[in-house]
């Protein structure tokens, strides 16, 4: 159940390889834009994610960050994954700059379960993700997704 759920979520995720962003709020904005929601909602959503980021870094360590929030402006769980050209400082506890960013946004009520399952799954797999050099050199979206599926065991 959990595996099929994660597989489905990853299938629908937006992937942005080689984002030219200099700092964390910039990459968050770029990833929010990739979700292709209405412009006014886009701003509200980016603000909500940034607000969350300001009260505690989502840089989980080893070069992985998972900015996330639950927001009224989305109707379902949405995921965007970005790989910056140059690692970005996310204020992570281990001080390592971030090489891969998973943006997770979900509505406050529905999908609560999926949201926490995915958040937990990425958090528990981040060491493997970080160590997988292939993930950082792949240049095709479908290969990238296949590699992630492999890491998540789905």
């Amino acid at each position: 159940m959990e595996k099929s759920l994660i597989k489905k979520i990853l299938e629908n995720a937006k992937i942005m390889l080689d984002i030219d962003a200099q700092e964390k709020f910039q990459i968050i904005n770029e990833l929010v834009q990739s979700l292709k929601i209405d412009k006014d909602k886009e701003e509200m959503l980016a603000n909500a994610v940034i607000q969350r980021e300001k009260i505690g870094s989502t840089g989980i360590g080893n070069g992985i960050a998972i900015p996330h929030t639950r927001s009224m402006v989305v109707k379902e769980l949405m995921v965007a994954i970005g790989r910056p050209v140059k690692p970005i400082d996310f204020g992570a506890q281990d001080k390592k700059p971030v090489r891969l960013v998973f943006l997770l946004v979900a509505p406050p009520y529905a999908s609560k379960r999926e949201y926490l399952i995915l958040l937990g799954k990425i958090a528990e797999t981040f060491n493997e993700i970080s160590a997988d050099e292939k993930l950082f050199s792949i240049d095709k979206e479908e290969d990238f997704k296949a590699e992630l599926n492999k890491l998540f065991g789905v």
Partner: protein
Amino acid sequence: MDKQLLLLISLQELDILRKDRIKEKKVGFEIDNIKKMEEARASIVSQLKDHIYRKYTRLTKRSGSAVVPVVNNICQGCYLLLPTQMISPDLENQSVITCPNCGRILYWID
């Protein structure tokens, strides 16, 4: 969009975040800057009209969530189909409107 409604949505999102802290901690995230969160909340509250904030507080206590989305003209708080006089793109998100059945504040998501 109405500014008061926008503030209410931000306030509710911040309150959800406060509630999520424990669950987030379980999956490895630490929300360490509580002071900053309280400051952000106070800033939003200071911009809200008193009667609207009172309504928000009352609804949150009573119903768990004060602001709910409207999807396909249905209030997602009580699942009532809104009356036709409330269904107009000119009215949507232009002021703080409440559901005639459950009293929750409505946000048109589409």
